[in-house]
């Protein structure tokens, strides 16, 4: 019974993330890049034809999604491995992040850099500092917790309570999570106004900043959970339950954003 639930979430994440959310996000990113100088782009149809909608990147997503479907079918029905269950809920998300970041990098040089800056530029005089969205103490508390967790592991390594390999694995994992969370938060604060902000209103950025801080808190939660597990052998829940919840959460947020009327309207306007 529960196995089928896991299969369903694992398969649906391919459909939701690789086939629905990622192509939509590619199109939105492309639209945002053209927004650098909309008048110039409209006046130069040849540019629009040459640097058309990112078809190849979208097809890469579809094909990679099919690849993952094949891999999941193999893991679930032919390999007989139990550890594959946990991996099936976490591993497919990581390459998607790489594809997304890679796509943004490529489009930056392929499209954005080739569009000249507009002669007339405008911006809002509204400040976008962290304190304008929430009390910065919430973020500082996160970093205090990260330091506490790191301190616990360092002392554990020095006292010989945990093994070196486990220490390295935990520290690398936490560093990557903290780096991604911090980068996302700074990007949410500093990025320029995009068409999606006009479509969703001023709450869009607030929602984005809150989301990135929530990601930092999830990292803290995982750090504390791992500390209890590694030092006190206390298992609040299994890895499978955690990744299952995370996958459901990510899919729900993605679907909410995709199904939002403003997003659908914006996507319909992009050729």
């Amino acid at each position, binding site marked *: 019974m529960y196995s089928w639930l896991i299969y369903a979430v694992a398969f649906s994440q391919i459909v939701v993330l690789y086939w629905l959310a990622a192509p939509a996000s590619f199109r939105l990113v492309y639209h945002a890049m053209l927004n650098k100088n909309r008048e110039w782009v409209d006046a130069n149809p040849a540019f629009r034809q040459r640097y058309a909608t990112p078809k190849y990147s979208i097809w890469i997503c579809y094909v990679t999604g099919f690849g993952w479907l094949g891999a999941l079918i193999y893991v679930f029905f032919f390999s007989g491995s139990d550890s594959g269950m946990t991996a099936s809920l976490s591993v497919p998300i990581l390459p998607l992040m790489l594809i997304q970041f890679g796509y943004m990098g490529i489009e930056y040089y392929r499209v954005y850099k080739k569009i000249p*800056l507009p002669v007339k530029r405008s*911006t809002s005089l509204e400040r976008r500092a962290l304190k304008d969205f929430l009390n910065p103490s919430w973020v500082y508390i996160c970093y205090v917790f990260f330091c506490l967790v790191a301190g616990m592991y360092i002392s554990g390594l020095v006292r010989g309570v945990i093994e070196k390999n486990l220490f390295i694995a935990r520290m690398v994992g936490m560093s990557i999570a903290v780096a991604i969370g911090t980068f996302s938060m700074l990007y949410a604060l500093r990025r320029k106004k995009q068409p999606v902000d006009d479509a969703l209103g001023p709450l869009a950025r607030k929602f984005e900043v809150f989301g990135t801080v929530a990601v930092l808190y999830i990292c803290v939660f995982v750090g504390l959970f791992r500390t209890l597990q590694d030092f006190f052998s206390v298992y609040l829940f299994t890895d499978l339950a955690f990744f299952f919840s995370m996958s459901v959460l990510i899919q729900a947020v993605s679907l909410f954003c995709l199904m939002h009327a403003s997003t659908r309207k914006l996507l319909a306007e992009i050729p």
Partner: protein
Amino acid sequence: MDLEIDVSSLEAVYEQIVRQIQQGVQQGTLAPGTALPSIRQLADDLDLNHNTVARAYKILETNRVIRTAGRKGTFIHGDASSHIHSRNSHDAAYQMNELVTALFEKGLSKVQIEAVFKTALAIKRT
């Protein structure tokens, strides 16, 4: 409030920023104590060099239109409107003095200069 700049304009970009922020204060759009974006944010949003925005902020700070409070940020000065008004009055007096001197040098009498100014003001009023 939105800030609009035109890089092709004869007016320097930093002057456009100074002028528009002062206009915002005088029109009441930027109330005393309103937080302004950081130099980096404004420069990045407008695709300008950070030094250009820093120069504009420096002038506004010298004119006591804005005040910087360290890491807390930059804010509209509590008496920004009166400072702009007194600054404008001072500038007007200086420019008027320069103009009157130039007109005297051209040989116009005091009565003629007064007549010219009255005519100019009358045209402006209509």
